[in-house]
């Protein structure tokens, strides 16, 4: 697990610094890490509990509903993982969960990387859409390219597009100090309408042969640009090698942040921009760099999805896209660390697939359960944002004990 240097919300870091025990760095890190595991676990537990209350209050059996969702996500496959026959429901559902996990890892990393620089990239969805559009464009054109080159070009352009899209926000932050939250929200919606524009009737990427369709969609990306599928059948959204790219990106994320100068600077700026500037780090350059890298992750997610299993896209898909926003929940729950993001992405990937297409339940309808995911997602973000509460309760007793003698000493100082 990487060293958790995530920018915290609220005044928590000060309290930790105040509380730093006798052996400084190591015990601080250990304590912090413990909080880093406990908080997300409690958060998820509470969120699912409240979700269960909602299910029960609306007249469904929560335990049965959750069991159906677990089966819908294919998590029961983990009980007999040697059965990789994709024709079996559990194996197929699990492969689909991993497909969602792939996207969520990258969208989560996008949010997490910016977070480590003290920036909140809400624009993951817009960067994802921009990546999708570019990958579709590359995949549909340049049909005569050789397969690996075509794939690489598509992925690279998608990532670059995401980087540019987020880079606009980073640039405005660095030059005129425009708040990245506002700019990324606006860029999200601009990307949304660009997406509608390019795929709509008469749009540049709308397929001519699909003109007769009531719902305008793009052409399929050429076979030479499609990512190879290693588990399942391509026609049935098999699991593609993008999964390994996502896993690789987790490693890249960890290495860049923890083992390079760039990562050190990003973390330093995220910790305290003033101190970083005092130490000779160019804060503005790092804002721009962090946003661009962050956007590249989200753009990559869009590119991999397009070349991996979507292959084509339509206006309705653009309007329904919200997986980039899930990246926020993934990053926050994963405490902006590589391992955390991976695990959180698996959880939400399962939740996304298990409550929608994978769900076969007499207890709870997929249309209902899909919204349950949104509720749980909201609760998770709400509680993780307020982890001050959980940590405060956790440490209040110990803190009190240590404070008393300190307070007494301070009082004595004041008197003299």
């Amino acid at each position, binding site marked *: 697990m990487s060293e958790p240097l995530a920018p915290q919300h609220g005044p928590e870091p000060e309290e930790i610094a105040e509380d730093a025990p006798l052996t400084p760095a190591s015990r601080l890190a250990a304590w912090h890490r413990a909080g880093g595991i406990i908080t997300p676990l409690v958060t998820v537990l509470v969120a699912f509990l409240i979700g269960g209350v909602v299910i029960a209050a609306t007249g469904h059996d929560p335990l049965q509903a959750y069991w159906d969702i677990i089966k819908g996500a294919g998590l029961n496959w983990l009980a007999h993982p040697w059965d990789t026959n994709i024709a079996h429901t559990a194996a197929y559902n699990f492969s689909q969960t991993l497909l969602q996990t792939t996207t969520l890892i990258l969208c989560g990393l996008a949010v997490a990387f910016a977070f480590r620089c003290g920036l909140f990239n809400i624009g993951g969805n817009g960067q994802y859409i921009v990546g999708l559009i570019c990958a579709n464009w590359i995949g549909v054109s340049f049909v005569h390219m050789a397969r690996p080159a075509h794939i690489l070009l598509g992925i690279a352009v998608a990532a670059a597009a995401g980087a540019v899209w987020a880079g606009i926000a980073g640039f405005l932050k660095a030059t005129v100090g425009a708040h990245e939250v506002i700019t990324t929200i606006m860029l999200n919606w601009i990307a949304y309408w660009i997406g509608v524009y390019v795929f*709509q009737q008469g749009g540049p990427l709308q397929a001519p042969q699909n003109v007769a369709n009531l719902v305008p969609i793009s052409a399929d990306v050429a076979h030479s640009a499609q990512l190879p599928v290693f588990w399942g059948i391509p026609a049935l959204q098999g699991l593609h090698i993008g999964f390994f790219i996502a896993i690789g990106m987790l490693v890249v994320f960890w290495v860049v942040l923890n083992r390079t100068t760039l990562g050190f600077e990003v973390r330093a700026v995220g910790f305290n921009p003033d101190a970083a500037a005092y130490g000779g780090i160019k804060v503005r350059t790092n804002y721009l760099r962090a946003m661009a890298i962050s956007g590249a992750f989200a753009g990559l997610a869009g590119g991999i999805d397009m070349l991996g299993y979507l292959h084509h896209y339509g206006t309705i898909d653009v309007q329904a896209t919200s997986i980039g926003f899930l990246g926020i929940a993934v990053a926050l729950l994963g405490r902006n660390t590589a391992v955390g993001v991976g695990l959180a992405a698996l959880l939400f990937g399962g939740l996304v697939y298990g409550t929608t297409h994978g769900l076969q339940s007499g207890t709870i309808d997929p249309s209902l359960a899909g919204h*349950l995911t949104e509720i749980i997602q909201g609760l998770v973000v709400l509680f993780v944002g307020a982890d001050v509460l959980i940590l405060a309760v956790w440490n209040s007793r110990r803190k009190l004990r240590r404070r008393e003698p300190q307070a007494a000493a301070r009082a004595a100082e004041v008197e003299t």
Partner: protein
Amino acid sequence: MSTYVGTVRSGASRFLEPKAIGILGILFGLLALWLAIPPIAASSPVWPVIAGLLGAMCGVIALSRGAYRVGGGAIASAVFGALLAYLATRSSSAKLDQVVDASLIAQMLVFATPLTYAALGGIFSERSGVVNIGLEGMMLMGAFWGIWGADKTGSWFWGVAIGALSGGLLALVHAFFAISLRADQIVGGVAVNFLALGITGYFFVQLYHGNNIPIGVAQVPDLHLTSASSTSFFGNSFGNLNYMIWLAILLVPLSYVILFKTPVGLRIRACGEHPRAADTVGINVYLVRYLSVVLSGILAALGGAYLTVGYLNTFNENVTAGRGFIALAAVIFGNWRPFGAFGATLLFGLSTAIAFRLNVYSDQAQTLFFALPYVLTLIAVAGVIGRTVPPAADGRPYKKQ
């Protein structure tokens, strides 16, 4: 040192100052557009283009003499004005009449109203020092529970009231996490949006099976100022507007007076600018912030309720579709002031109203017009059109000592 040194000028030469030239350029840009639309509707593109060129020239002169903002604005307005005017002259006048007529103003108000409510809400919340990204979610709550209330009680008034209450409750959640727990306000706002999306979607499926709301739900009535058959410009524009539109228009000066002319407003602003100082003089910062955020939720939800109970008369999943974020943009655009934000919502409302009519030309033009509010906001926060200054303590949790 400033970029240009001002000297004492006589009356006449004041009009040659760079800023005045820049403003002239902006006017030329507007003139270019004005020439091309009814009632003048010049058929040749020559005159609008000449006006546009003059405007751009004025802009360049203003730029070269140091008035960067006005000069840039003039060039932008001239280019946009000339471009739109050119497109307008190229199209048939029948189509043009469909886009620009008196009912455009009525439609502008229809689209601006939900934004106005939410933007006023955003102003109250942010002026008290709590960032409210959750406006969208609060609108959505008002939209769903508003029409649910109208359906169950059979009365539009109680429907709107129930909708407002639901938005207030969601705002209370946001307030609790942002103020009492001192959680990150932006994260909290994002969470509130997801939560509202989930709750409204879930109960829409649970209560209405995801189908449409029954036809004939009580609707907010219109206020008829002229006879229904009146075709005057005034009648078409303002004659048959909804009660909630008038309420929104009334709330703008009211909010201004409350925020800037009363002790209550002073307290709210003090909490947003310097909470510690406010606390020192005996203002209960937590209470003021709680009330402001809840009021903000109620206002945003009124906007949402207008959307369903007052205008659409039905509900779809995620019916607000980003309007809360446009309202947020209007808050920034209007520099955290009620009249400024109202102006921004009118501008955004107008662009939406025009966008809906542009499909007589092409779907593409319509789509790109829908993106205009977001592009304008991006330009605004980039500092091209004046500076936007948020309240000093906006987004900072306050810890009582």
